């Protein structure tokens, strides 16, 4: 039995500890917002937070998450109102939308650590997230907008 805290809820899983966290989330727990894109840490579709760090859940064993706090896109905010979610909607970033959960989860760690990210900071934080639809420009602007929203909110 592995004990995991996911989006503040506790789960006891009877599962092969080698299972990637991605598939534990999707197939066992039923949280499918975290996406599969490559399975080898190349695309970022599967990014979740593990004790606040952005990790690629496709190459993170579920055993590594035991006893830690996991946050997925479903738990990023209580009312879907994280500054990034607001900014994403405001700039209507998504095309197909498949990559966007991973994009937002990567950006969320950046914004928490860095209230005023520069273009360079955003570039390096987001380099691991692929979007075939080509929404990078809007993602970039949405992160800047979210930083803005975050600064205003904390004043």
């Amino acid at each position, binding site marked *: 039995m592995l004990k995991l805290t996911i989006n503040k809820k506790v789960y006891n899983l009877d599962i092969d500890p080698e299972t990637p966290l991605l598939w534990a989330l999707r197939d066992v727990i039923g949280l499918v917002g975290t996406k599969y894109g490559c399975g080898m840490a190349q695309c970022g579709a599967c990014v979740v937070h593990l004790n606040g760090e952005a990790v690629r859940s496709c190459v993170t064993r579920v055993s590594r998450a035991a006893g830690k706090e996991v946050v997925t896109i479903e738990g990023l905010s209580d009312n*879907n109102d994280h500054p990034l979610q607001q900014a994403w909607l405001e700039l*209507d970033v998504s095309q197909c939308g498949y990559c966007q959960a991973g994009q937002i989860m990567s950006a969320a760690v950046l914004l928490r650590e860095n209230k005023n990210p520069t273009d360079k900071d955003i570039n390096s934080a987001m380099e691991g997230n692929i979007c075939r639809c080509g929404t990078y420009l809007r993602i970039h602007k949405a992160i800047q907008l979210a930083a803005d929203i975050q600064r205003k909110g904390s004043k």
Partner: protein
Amino acid sequence: MEQTRTTHSRRSFLKSSLLAGGGLMISFSWLPKAGQANTPHHPVAPEAWNELTGYVRIYPDNSITILNPNPEFGQNVMTSLPMMVAEELEADWKKIVVEMGPHDSTKLGAQFTGGSNSVRMYWRPLREAGAAARQMLLQAAAESWSVPIEELTTRAAIIYHEKTGKSGTYGSFASKAATLPVPKGMKLKAPKDFKVVRNSQKNVEGIKIVSGQPLFGIDYKVDGMLIAMIQHPPAFGMKLKSFDATQTLKMPGIKDVFTLKLYEEGFEQGGFDTRSFNDLLVVVGNTTWEVMNARKKLIVDWVPAGDTKDTFGGRGTKREVTVPGALESTTAQLAKMEEYAQKPAQQLRKDGDPETAFKNAAQIIERTYNAPFLAHNCMEPMNFFAHVTAEKALLAGPLQAPGWSEPTLAKLLQLPAEKIEIQMTRMGGGFGRRAYGHYLYEVALIAKKVQAPVKLIYTREDDMTYGIYRPMYTATYRAALDANKKLIAFHVKGGGIPEHAIHANRFPAGAVDNYLAEGWQIPSNITIGAFRAPRSNFNAAAEQSFLDELAEAMGKDPIDFRLELLQKVKEKPVGRNNEYDVDRYTGILKLVKEKSGWGKPENNKYNRGVAAYFCHNSYAAHVVDIVMRNNRPYVERVYSAIDCGIVINPDAATNMVEGAVIDGIGNAFYGKLSHKDGAAEQSNFHNYRMIRHSEAPAKIEVHFVQNDIDPTGLGEPPFPPVFGAVANALYKLNKKRHYNQPYLNNPLQSGTVTNNKKPF
């Protein structure tokens, strides 16, 4: 349920009905014009399938539901199509609920996403449905209030009669309206009166996307669902000989390992039934990870398949095609293409006397361009769900054209079409890839065999190495100049594996007195499919690079050179069947010239390239500005001019053009799927290079030509000219022409071609 049926025009009709519990439903059916032959590049379904149906539901509490009839793969039809209904209905857009339509090939017809068709195809019928519903609601109100209908006005789903001060919601009249006949010959709004259309509206599924709700096929789940994966041969031209699954079956969660034949011998495939491998080695288990893991323990013997036969049916004809069995490699393919390029080819168009003109030329410029196979790499890999019983089948997942897959599914499952339900989920990208239904057929047969609900998932590796690629293309362009450097003849000869890309009637056809277009092709076992702007995505690279080089040789500005050619077409077009509209083509070039500040000294620090192209009924031009950054070329700015007629949802349309530009830069710089002994050399994103965040331009300025032309489509047209503009900008950077794609990442190496030397 009462129904009134009114024939609207020769090809469309509307129906109204009373909703259970009260309310009005307007549904419409419409037959789009029959088009060209149904080929992967001009997808037109047989007319009988082309009946399209949608609905508007107005409930007594004034809530309104609009159905989106077409599959959503990121082109935003879930929003733009219902907007067209709401426009005529005069409803409050913010309160409308949009639902994804079901698929029903007999009643609802071919709902397909492809060919930049969605908006174009639905533009009229959806507005008519909205207008008819409004008219009936007005009629009901006029009768109830005993006032002339002309005195009524509507705003945000409320009807007003100013003189008496009366007002009422649509919902309050909906049930009465449902008893009225559907009006004929609705007058639709003039563009100047648009309130919803032409105003940016947010993606109706935006909130679901950013909060991670289940939307995609891969998210589909039912109780007791199993997971299946297919182990396909490691190379094109190979097939399964034998396997040993002993170890696999011992792995936890594994239910079964078996083989299936997709098509029995002589099975008549439809145009989109392409599949790369016919013998399926299937592993079925409880969870994705268990199946992925257990697959690794399979011991499989693969052998060369040798030449095989495909049978194609449909339209009363039966055609057998031999698929060569050789294990192909990219270098050998290039050599073969060079060899074929020297042979006589099929003449596609000829104007004047090109042979003589070339003989008399003072100067001939000849250039050859090559491009590799490309993988679609939709971020959501291929997958589909199926539950098949003896009586019926339910399938759900990402698919561009359910109407094309259903007949094949019916044949494979031996079920009547009405017993097959296909649910269309949101797609994590499509780009043409999901018009090919092999993965539905596979999961249907698997589900039938295991007698349980099952979801087939392709891993990224399965997806990338499976095939259905953008074809490998080549083209040689020749231009003849006279002693005054005047263009007197133009010749293009294109080929490819397994098809050529030439559009013989496109620009510059019509602009040159002596013109020749030819094509040839080499059969292959590597499967191909439509890829965002099929064929055009190569032509716009090759032709637009060639025109740039030609302009330079003639001492002309590349935009002015194109404008001169177009002017000539306008005054005195050469030949017939010139596909493009000269004024619209000219329009985008002038617009991009103006908006990019072409020729202005402040832009001199950029290496600028331009390209313009017409495809899928719309026009797109880009100016691309490249700089060196960290020792690498970087596209810093892009200016785009687009003419797609009326733009339904401007901000979403801008997003789509930005996406096409970024996708285009990525594919032009890096896109390549190569082969060695039949095996794909790229299998995942560690060796298939995709454009990354930092490589997206800092600025993409999108300008739409403002006109009132009915919408002509947008998903594909902005993509092809990106390649040409990038190639031309790269040339400015280092004075080296780029003939082989991908431009930056191991371009195809042509062994013996000698004609790309500077001849002057």
